């Protein structure tokens, strides 16, 4: 009986030692940090991994990024679960500001979208310069197209192209039009697996390694321009929001130093994002 007790005590101590202090230390580890709701493209392209250490070293503010689609990121910020919103769909961002969730939206940088597709190019759209016309040909050829289908910024941009092409792609959902309902990377994985076309942001495409037969088929159309905006969530809607530290991050991103850090980020000596905080109307 005594041995049992000793064994039990030992096991309990072991578990308690493992679990409890860890829990406590996790609770207190958070001293000065902000939460940024952002998109999968900024996270998965590696941009944040490059930017955040520079900002954290300068200010001592830890930046915690929750990377989801633009639609979900806006929802998170509206619910007060993020201090800063950093996404890429200007109409939605302006709606966010108009609703009073943020005082001001600032342009930060842009990159561009590219249309990727299989080398065999069944819709014969390679090197076309008009994205909407290319989409029309994809629909006419009933060539497989992998859509994000997740209300992300990229998905919204893609829907605008279908509209411009005069094609109701969702009517073919499940046939040649495949909605993955997931992030950029998983959608590219799906496209690579089924030799489908897809619209991708260039940053994610450049850092994406599982390309299989995929290559860029359409690029350089001015309509493929992809603008990112940033805004600190306002205290007016959510009093707990860390507006000062959030604003510090926003200010840094649009400062000459932050803009230079964005321009410095390269993969295989290719620049991924182009700072344009000072460009009027961006």
């Amino acid at each position, binding site marked *: 009986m005594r041995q049992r007790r000793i064994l039990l005590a030992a096991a309990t101590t072991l578990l308690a030692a493992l679990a409890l202090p860890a829990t406590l230390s996790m609770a207190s580890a958070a001293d000065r940090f902000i939460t940024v709701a952002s998109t999968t493209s900024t*996270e998965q392209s590696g941009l944040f991994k490059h930017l955040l250490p520079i900002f954290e070293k300068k200010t001592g503010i830890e930046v915690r990024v929750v990377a989801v689609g633009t639609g979900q990121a806006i929802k998170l910020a509206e619910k007060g679960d993020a201090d800063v919103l950093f996404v890429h769909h200007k109409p939605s961002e302006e709606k966010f500001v108009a609703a009073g969730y943020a005082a001001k939206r600032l342009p930060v940088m842009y990159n561009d979208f590219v249309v990727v597709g299989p080398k065999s190019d069944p819709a014969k759209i390679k090197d076309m310069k008009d994205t909407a016309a290319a989409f029309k040909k994809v629909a006419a050829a009933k060539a497989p197209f992998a859509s994000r289908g997740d209300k992300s910024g990229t998905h919204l941009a893609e829907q605008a192209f279908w509209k411009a092409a005069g094609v109701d792609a969702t009517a073919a959902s499940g046939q040649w039009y495949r909605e993955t309902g997931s992030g950029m990377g998983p959608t590219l994985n799906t496209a690579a697996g089924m030799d489908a076309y897809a619209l991708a942001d260039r940053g994610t495409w450049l850092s994406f390694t599982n*390309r299989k037969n995929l290559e860029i088929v359409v690029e350089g159309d001015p309509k493929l321009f992809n603008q990112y905006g940033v805004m600190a969530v306002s205290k007016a809607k959510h009093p707990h929001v860390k507006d000062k530290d959030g604003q510090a991050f926003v200010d840094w991103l649009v400062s000459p130093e932050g803009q230079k850090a964005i321009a410095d980020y390269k993969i295989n000596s290719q620049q991924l994002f182009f700072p344009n905080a000072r460009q009027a109307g961006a």
Partner: protein
Amino acid sequence: MDEIAAAFSAALAMILGGDPELVQIVLLSLRVSLTAVVLAAILGLPVGAALAVFRFPGRRVLVVLLNALMGLPPVVVGLVVYVTLSRSGPLGALGWLFTPLAMILAQTILITPLIAAVARQSMAELWAEYADELRSLGVGPWRTVATLLWDGRFGLLTSVLAGFGRAAAEVGAVIMVGGNIAHVTRTMTTAIALETAKGELALAMGLGILLMGISLVINAGAYLLGEFARAREAGAP
């Protein structure tokens, strides 16, 4: 085939490399899942034993409910915990969202029914054996539950390990309530999801191999501990 070979070499490189970021991810995974298992066992085991011993109206309904809850989809648990812990939710003021505490809460909710249901099954069998004896000794109900839990502890190990397995393997709940934030809430499973999203399949599979290896070590450890304790007991006067 190349990808699978690359996965194994990636796993080996990770184990040998001792990359501090990876160590942090592994430790966080273990802390979250083990803490959730401890909490779920504290809650679930007595519930399971009580359901095996006590007879009361609605007991069968509870048993069926518990069995059904074993199949709780992690993403649903994640959603409910997210809505609850969101700043706009009822427990938003706690500030737990996107912290390991939220992940522990979600996993505890996820695996408590599993631990309780499996425990109830093994306790019911033991109770069938012990019922007459304990009744004739006039042992009170709560003391009976305690006796069953203690005497059936080796059988209960299985329920706890099943709970750990489910917690360590799930991604849907922790990614939603933790946010997969680098250095803060990134666990092995969410890191695998992220690397897969980046198309880094070899690295993702390497992480998967590592996760399975860790799970194997923990299960082997629990098995050996159980055997050791059993042997001690058999040898004791």
